[in-house]
């Protein structure tokens, strides 16, 4: 601990940031569902990261998998095996990597798009705003799954195209939220001060508006990951993903194509869906908790 007398402005700023973070955490901790979701998420991410240390390629190989074919859950294979003799537990574990990665990347893309469009619309006003918001509302109304499917079909199936397809269809709600928040921020006096001191459009947007819309963007991002993970599994289930990469959606697609539903092979169908639902629910709970921290109006009603 240094004495406050030698603290420069930079250090002061960090201290203040630390304090804000602490206050934020105290507020967040009050929401029990949010904490449960956060624990789940951290667990899922850690598991996904360490998966390669526990699962060898041979165990996931279509030709060399060690297990018996389509076996019920047993001591060796806690969740049973699929038609190639791969352990379902390993498939879920490994699949979490693709599902989470695609979820994060697609969300990132759509959030960047939404934030840029939202801030631009809220900052420039006039015809730019009405044009951008018309466009946003138009995309918002369109059936996004149909648009995403069409994009993937035209661009060729694969993980990259899935990320792009979800990214360019999921941004409108973010854009509307960010625009509303931008309008609120721009009405405040410190923006006028920044303009009076000669700050240009770029300066105002990146230095003053962006930091102030970030909390909303963060909450929105967390909520969005839940829906992009579901979207990924949906597109993969429709056979639009890369079949050589294991994900929760492709596992379900393989199960259905192998007739697992009509044969009643529940251990092949239940786990991937539960995994998707748990992770999506965890993101939703954390996102709602974040919203409540940043938006006191929501806090009292719950």
């Amino acid at each position: 601990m240094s004495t406050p007398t030698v603290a420069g402005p930079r250090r002061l700023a960090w201290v203040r940031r630390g304090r804000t973070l602490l206050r934020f955490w105290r507020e967040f901790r009050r929401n029990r569902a949010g904490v449960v979701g956060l624990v789940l998420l951290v667990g899922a991410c850690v598991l996904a990261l360490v998966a390669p240390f526990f699962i060898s390629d041979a165990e996931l190989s279509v030709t060399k998998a060690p297990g018996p074919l389509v076996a019920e859950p047993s001591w060796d294979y806690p969740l049973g095996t699929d038609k190639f003799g791969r352990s379902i537990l390993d498939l879920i574990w490994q699949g979490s990597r693709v599902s989470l990665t695609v979820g994060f990347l697609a969300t990132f893309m759509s959030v960047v798009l939404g934030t840029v469009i939202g801030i631009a619309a809220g900052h420039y006003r006039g015809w730019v705003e009405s044009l951008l918001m018309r466009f946003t509302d138009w995309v918002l109304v369109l059936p996004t799954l149909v648009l995403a499917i069409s994009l993937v079909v035209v661009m060729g199936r694969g993980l990259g195209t899935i990320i792009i397809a979800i990214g360019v269809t999921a941004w409108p709600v973010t854009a509307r939220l960010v625009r509303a928040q931008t309008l609120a921020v721009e009405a405040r006096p410190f923006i006028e001060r920044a303009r009076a001191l000669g700050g240009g459009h770029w300066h105002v947007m990146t230095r003053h508006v962006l930091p102030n819309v970030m909390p909303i963007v963060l909450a929105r991002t967390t909520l969005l990951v839940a829906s992009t993970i579901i979207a990924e599994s949906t597109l993969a289930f429709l056979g639009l993903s890369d079949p050589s990469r294991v994900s929760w959606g492709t596992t379900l697609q393989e199960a259905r194509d192998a007739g697992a539903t009509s044969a009643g092979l529940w251990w092949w169908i239940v786990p991937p869906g539960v995994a998707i639902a748990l992770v999506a629910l965890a993101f939703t709970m954390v996102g709602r908790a974040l919203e409540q921290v940043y938006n006191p109006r929501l806090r009292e009603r719950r």
Partner: protein
Amino acid sequence: MLGAFISLLAVAFIGFFLFRVLPGDPVRAMTQDRKVSLEQLEALREQLGLDEPLWRQFLDYLGQLATLDLGTSYQYRGAESVAGLIAEKVGPTVLLVGTATVISAVLGTWLGVRTGWRHGSTSDRVNTGIALTLWSVPTFWLGLMMIILFAAGAGPIPDIFPAGGMRDPDVTGWALVPNVAAHLVLPVITLVAVVYAQYLLVIRSSVLDEMGSDYLVTARAKGLRDAVVRRRHAVPNALLPAVTMIAIDLGGIVAGTILVETVFSWPGLGYMFYEALKVPDLPLVQGMFIFFSAAVILMNLLADLVYPLLDPRVRR
């Protein structure tokens, strides 16, 4: 009106851009993974007018759209027009979506009003929790679970409902009604599970917004019973914003329909879309993209037109 027209034009433009411009050579994209002779390629190019400039192609394409000519599918050896195929499959989809929407709207409104009115109560928490869980579950997986539990024989009561399709092949005449109804049960339950949760959450938050209003205090001060305050005063006002919210999310119903029809092999538009994307049958995918988008936009226009009739405040 003008807005809807511009939206439709934009859909047409995106359809053109997606399927004609983006793939580089549309003919190559259309014939992906299929054996085609050089003559066939040439004939396709000619037929699509690809030797003409792009703006010219776009105008031709608009002209075709205006006459409801969506091209021909080649999945069926080029004999079937896309518009004809769509018209053929609309019936089953309307039956499925109509039934599910009516049930969801009634269930969602009823539960949404109750949970919003008594927010914070146990029933509110339980219902919101169920809705949020259903919201997190992928639609297609819910369908697969339905089949496993109620059709495949893994559940407690094996085989009560058929696993897919719309009817058994040997059934005709009046016997068709109970037969189709039995086939309808699982798809409708799945679709309702997805859609009602949305309605519940929208109407609940809409009721919450009205809760603090002065007019409710007035109604209570008049000595009206709680149920009357809710039914006569709060609900009509809370339903208004819900109309717009639900119209905006019609795309979600389209998505749900595609997935439910795919899982249950329900012979409607969604299943045809799935079959088309598997091939891929680009003219059919394009036609259905335009059809679905146009349908959603027109429904939104309808909601905009009906809104002033429901809400005197926006009437001028």
